[in-house]
């Protein structure tokens, strides 16, 4: 099994669909403990991503991911823009020049993405940020030995739900302190959609 250009494009399209569908939900989550724009930001960014990668011809996976990164960086803004932008940039860099991605390259790329997020956001696990989805995903990917639709979906979903119990220490929700407990982290929910989309791509056959 290998990830190719068309898979990555489908991954982004599916991510976009989920984000557009749940735009208001993401904003509502952000209204509760942030500033209410996460759905708007992500929907604007991923809409541009899909437009961009559909109108471009790619020969390498890394080029697709580079455009995803640049588009998110320049269209999302807020906290999530640089974080997702950095994540996809790190993936692109670690896969530089590759047309097809085997599992170990893929795990390495996602792990680099996580490092990028943590570096950029100066956040670590347990601070109610999207790190709380990306870190468990990397750990799970490292345990598995090939693309597994189910474990990706389950891990992303569980860790996203687990953010509810966490007290925010980073990002806008941190201003709320204890009052952030009991609310899902919006960025973790959008990250869940992205991994859920990946899981579907895998299920459809990588």
């Amino acid at each position: 099994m290998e990830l190719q250009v068309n898979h990555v494009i489908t991954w982004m399209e599916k991510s976009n669909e989920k984000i557009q569908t749940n735009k208001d939900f993401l904003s509502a989550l952000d209204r509760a403990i942030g500033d209410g724009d996460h759905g708007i930001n992500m929907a604007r960014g991923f809409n541009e991503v899909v437009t961009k990668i559909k109108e471009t011809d790619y020969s390498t996976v890394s080029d697709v991911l580079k455009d995803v990164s640049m588009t998110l960086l320049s269209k999302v803004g807020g906290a999530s823009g640089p974080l997702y932008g950095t994540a996809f940039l790190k993936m692109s860099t670690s896969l530089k020049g590759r047309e097809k991605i085997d599992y170990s390259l893929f795990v390495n790329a996602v792990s680099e993405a996580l490092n990028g997020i943590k570096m950029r956001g100066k956040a670590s696990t347990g601070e109610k940020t999207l790190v709380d989805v990306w870190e468990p995903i990397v750990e799970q990917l490292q345990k598995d030995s090939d693309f597994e639709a189910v474990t990706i979906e389950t891990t992303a979903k569980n860790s996203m739900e687990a953010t509810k119990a966490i007290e925010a220490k980073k990002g806008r929700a941190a201003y709320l302190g204890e009052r952030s407990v009991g609310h899902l982290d919006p960025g973790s929910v959008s990250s869940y959609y992205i991994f859920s989309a990946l899981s579907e791509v895998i299920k459809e056959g990588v």
Partner: protein
Amino acid sequence: MKKIINDPNFVVKDMLEGFVAAYPNDVKLLPNTTVVVREDAPVSNKVGLVSGGGSGHEPAHAGYVGKGMLDAAVAGEVFTSPTPDQVLEAIKAVDSGEGVLLIIKNYTGDVMNFEMAAELAEAEGINVQQVVVNDDVAVEDSSFTTGRRGIAGTVFVHKIVGAKATQGASMEEVKAVAEKVVANVRSIGMALTPCIVPAAGKPSFELKDNEMEVGIGIHGEPGIKRTEVTTAHDIATELMEKVLDDMNLKSGDEVAVMINGLGATPEMELYIVNKEVNNILTEKGIKIYDTFVGEYMTSLEMAGCSVTLLKVDEELKSLLDAESKAPAFRR
């Protein structure tokens, strides 16, 4: 949602075009960006000053672009920090070779986007430094978390740092005075009603008919507590208590005061708050060097206000007094 707008997705573009149309001799919009710069940028032999942030805080930040204040302001989407590519354009447009100082309000998004822009600009050989404003005492000041937000006190940073840079000070000196202002400025806000982000179409939070939120953020972030609306006297007393608790002012110290409207509050009410603030300071023997009452850092149509105190010394006083031609802060 009742607003005088066209397409909610283009409010920032429309606004910026309307803004530069109002001051064509003073400012311009960099083509295909959301960056407003001084007409004469880059100004030679001057450290460039760039600020910005999400839109919806007008006149911040474009209103503070002009001789004596900022060289450029970068506008993000409403309440969303601008992106690194835009900030980079601003940096490049205002760098005269003396380097560029970024004045950033302390929000994760702003810090990250401006930092990425700084990295990109440094890669192009520009000396970029930054100062992060965190004046909002409503938030606990902790190095383990995001820390305090930057709110209306940022305008004092723009003014004073702008004056310093205009004098031809070096990057080191400009940055030092910026940090001095940050160290001496404290604010806190309160809201009576929420605001509505155009693209969202609904209020960012809700308050009952008799409720107010103390310590509100300028994006509607929840504050310290929600209580019954009291009198201007009690509101001013509570806000000032929080600010003064954090400042360690002694009788004889001098401050500049800013009573900032968040958007929908009649100016009449701001002056009533100023009366109360003035009384509190006078009673404590704190001297008021200068007072600024008006809308300086808003939150769309939120009703409410913030109170900012800046402790001033001789240097800060003379920089505060210096000429400014920025549309929203004429001196």
